């Protein structure tokens, strides 16, 4: 059996060898050339795929460049945000004491108009009063740094200028501006303003502000003016009732409707006077007992 298998194996090997010996046929040369030529022709039309090989690295590089640009842009923007935050913080710190005064005055006043939202004008005032020693340039820089922060406040467009904000603010906000400042700051400041004590570049600024304040007092009704510590109701040269900014240490803080002669004359060199107050028939009379009380400096009397 084993011999038989071995014989078969040998026979198969011999058959295979014999077959391969006789199998030497080759394709003719002209067919070789034809096929190679066809392959060359086709290879010329083959699109080179080098592009796809570079596609991944190139796209990754592009993504990297875009990311870096974006990050650098974000970093450039970041200081602006911090500046705004800083300005907001400064704004919150600076008018702190006047804000307390505002609340106190609101309680005292019968007008009861209190608006915690500060207008740019009041911000300016706060800066000016709390930093009298600052130069004009420093003040202007401060105003510029604070004004952008108004964008963080609600209902105000961030691009508005100081002037626009002053003119755009509602009546209540303007009224709030005339609410008297603490005596320790505002009265002495006003006196020095009127007397021209302030010399140099800041005088012009203060005059402008005084004009603004007078304008704000003029916006008050006569009743509100009587209740105001910063404004005084008086007669002008044409004998017409006008509401003007309180101009001296006597009438600043003097509430015409409720304060008495004693409260006026407790201040040094102040005297209580009352003028006949005529009520025109077409308006509501604001004078009690036909008197318009004033608290004036003694020498002016």
């Amino acid at each position, binding site marked *: 059996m084993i011999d038989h298998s071995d014989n*078969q194996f*040998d*026979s*198969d090997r*011999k*058959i*295979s060898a*014999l*077959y*391969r*010996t*006789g*199998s030497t*046929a*080759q*394709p*003719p040369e002209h*067919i*070789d050339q*034809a*096929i*190679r030529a*066809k*392959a*060359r022709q*086709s*290879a*010329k*039309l*083959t699109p*080179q*795929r080098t592009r796809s090989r570079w596609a991944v690295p190139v796209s990754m590089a592009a993504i990297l460049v875009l990311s870096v640009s974006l990050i650098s842009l974000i970093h450039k923007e970041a200081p602006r945000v911090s500046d705004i935050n800083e300005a907001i913080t400064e704004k919150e710190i600076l008018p702190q004491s006047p804000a307390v005064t505002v609340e106190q005055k609101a309680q005292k006043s019968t007008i009861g108009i209190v608006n915690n939202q500060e207008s740019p004008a009041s911000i300016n005032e706060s800066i000016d009063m709390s930093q009298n020693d600052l130069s004009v340039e420093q003040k202007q820089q401060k105003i510029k740094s604070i004004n952008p922060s108004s964008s963080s406040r609600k209902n105000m467009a961030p691009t508005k200028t100081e002037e626009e904000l002053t003119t755009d603010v509602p009546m209540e906000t303007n009224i709030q501006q005339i609410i008297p400042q603490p005596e320790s700051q505002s009265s002495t400041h006003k006196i020095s303003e009127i007397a021209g004590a302030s010399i140099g570049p800041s005088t012009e600024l203060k005059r402008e502000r005084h004009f603004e304040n007078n304008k704000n007092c003029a916006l008050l009704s006569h009743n509100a003016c009587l209740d105001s510590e910063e404004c005084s109701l008086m007669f002008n040269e044409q004998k017409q009732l006008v509401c003007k900014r309180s101009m001296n240490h006597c009438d600043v803080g003097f509430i015409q409707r409720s304060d008495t002669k004693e409260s006026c004359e407790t201040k040094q060199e102040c005297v209580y006077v009352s003028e006949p107050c005529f009520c025109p028939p077409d308006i509501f009379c604001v004078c009690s007992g036909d008197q318009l009380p004033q608290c004036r400096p003694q020498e002016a009397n």
Partner: protein
Amino acid sequence: MSYDNNDENLMLKFSHNGDISAFDVLYERHKAPLFRYILKQTRHNNALTEELFQEVWSNLIRAREQYQPSARFSTYLFQIARNRIIDHVRRVSVMPVSDPETNHEDIANVTNDNPDRYAHNIDCIEQLQAYVSKLPDEQHETFILKHEGDHNLGHIAEITGVTLETVKSRLRYAMKKLRALMPEECL
């Protein structure tokens, strides 16, 4: 053979990059086995062999971008050749008879027609080729793929689309017949 120069990589170089030198290497390696496979399958019809041989390579060149190196290149090439042969046979309707008994008789007739060639080695080769060509188609194809393309049984099964056991069986029957037919002087 280095990995870079195996058939599959060469074909990828040609198909994707148009590397003509890669094609030349492939062609040199496979042209003779493929030509003989087609020649034997067409029963030594030279004109038909040349025609089919060109068609096979043309098909390979034309459809080179569809080549996927999931199979051996030689398997892929011989599958193309086999399909081309089958298409041709269907077209001309000359499918060879695959009855083993009839073929055995045909082989016997060939032997009887050439009694003077037994003594010589060349005669043995010619006799063997004659016997091989008279084998049943499946056995004939399996025998040729085994001896011309140098394919192992697994690759033959892949090319012909049958199981490995079928390939073994066909080859066993073919060898048995050839052993029986070949004269002792040749073995």
